[in-house]
């Protein structure tokens, strides 16, 4: 078994135009910076990107937006990005907005082999349009379906060469659910360690979900809103 690839360029081999990708992260926290940079340097275009957010101008998925590589975003919140707004208003970009918890669960369901499930979020709103509804007890629920991706690209703090992953703080966010839902899952990590150096009790994503892993060459970890006290 060899899941280790040299770098981001090698990790993204096989990603083609018009594919569907999942990209972990919440805002700029826990995003796969190295793979995004490699995608931005490629000619791949027409991508459908499933990601909670769409980056900021010139960083994160904003890098792919700037190069018009994304055809459709599936997200819960897409503020903080002027180029995104421009492409949306001009019709260059399609956007599907999904409640955040539903988005996370749809990714998890995709990885867990659950084609559909019921949630209360969005009942009676425009999110419910076209979706079956069903009453359980005295409450109404929407049917939501799994999401899967050709490639899921996640970022972890530490990973071993078997693909076991550990996330740090809130940089886990969507990475754990998305790691399950890729036909091929690429994990980039801050620190790639030999098998046996991670405590099996502390693994967040078991290696079975990960097909390719590499240590990112650099992490900028840009902060959107630095708020401090004295």
């Amino acid at each position: 078994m060899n899941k280790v690839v040299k770098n981001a360029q090698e990790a993204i081999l096989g990603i083609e135009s018009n594919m569907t990708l999942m990209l972990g992260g919440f805002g700029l926290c826990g995003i796969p910076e190295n793979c995004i940079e490699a995608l931005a340097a490629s000619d791949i275009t027409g991508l459908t990107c499933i990601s909670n957010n769409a980056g900021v101008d010139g960083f994160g998925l904003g890098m792919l937006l700037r190069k018009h590589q994304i055809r459709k975003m599936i997200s819960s919140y897409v503020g903080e990005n002027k180029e995104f707004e421009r492409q949306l208003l001009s019709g260059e970009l399609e956007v599907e907005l999904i409640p955040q918890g539903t988005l996370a669960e749809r990714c998890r369901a995709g990885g867990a082999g659950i084609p559909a499930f019921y949630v209360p979020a969005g009942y009676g709103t425009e999110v419910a349009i076209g979706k079956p509804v069903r009453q359980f007890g005295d409450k109404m629920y929407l049917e939501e379906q799994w999401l899967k991706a050709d490639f899921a690209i996640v970022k972890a703090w530490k990973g071993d060469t078997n693909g076991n992953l550990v996330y740090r703080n809130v940089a886990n966010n969507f990475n754990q659910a998305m790691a399950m839902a890729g036909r091929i899952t690429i994990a980039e990590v801050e620190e790639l360690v030999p098998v046996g150096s991670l405590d099996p009790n502390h693994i967040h994503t078991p290696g079975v979900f990960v097909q390719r892993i590499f240590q990112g060459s650099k992490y900028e970890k840009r902060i959107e809103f630095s708020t401090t006290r004295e």
Partner: protein
Amino acid sequence: MALDKNGIAKRIARELHDGYYVNLGIGIPTLVANYVPKGMQIILQSENGLLGIGPFPTKDEVDPDLINAGKQTITALPGSAFFDSSMSFAMIRGGHIDLTVLGAFEVSETGDIASWKIPGKLVKGMGGAMDLVASARNIIVAMMHTNPQGESKLLKKCTLPLTGVGVVKRIVSDLAVLDVTPDGFKLLERAPGVTVEQIIAATEGRLIVEGDIPEITI
């Protein structure tokens, strides 16, 4: 005099109970954290994956892997837990969060809430708001009673796209504390110096006023 944002937050803080797990939305709701009564332990949830939000970090403590749902840098208190987004919303959807406080553009007399989209303005998305309002056992809305033009935001029926249907239990506005009941908004308390007549005039939806309405104490 109408309450200011901090006044609204102070009044909402009186709804807290020791041991509550609470999700605070962006804006006025976030201020509630500043007024947790001394000696009371409240555990704040951030839906991007943290139970146990602490104060903002000092300059030296800033950690890009530690932000809140508004993407601001924060700290985690001793005894905190980190988890992934699907687990986070399992807590919310599963009814394990005791109280959700969030803002709104409009609330209807049947508890509908509109808080995420204004037609004609750019849509940024609902984030976790739809999950939160559809799931929390107890939802308090912190809002201004009227818009800057003086038009009521407590309506018979919401005019803006909905975030949730029949979900709001209590509203703390700059003018009043009200419950959403099967018969409409029920006036419970009024801001210091604000008259019942002023509240009636500022409320478009059905308003129930019974007996003497006490002033809000904060």
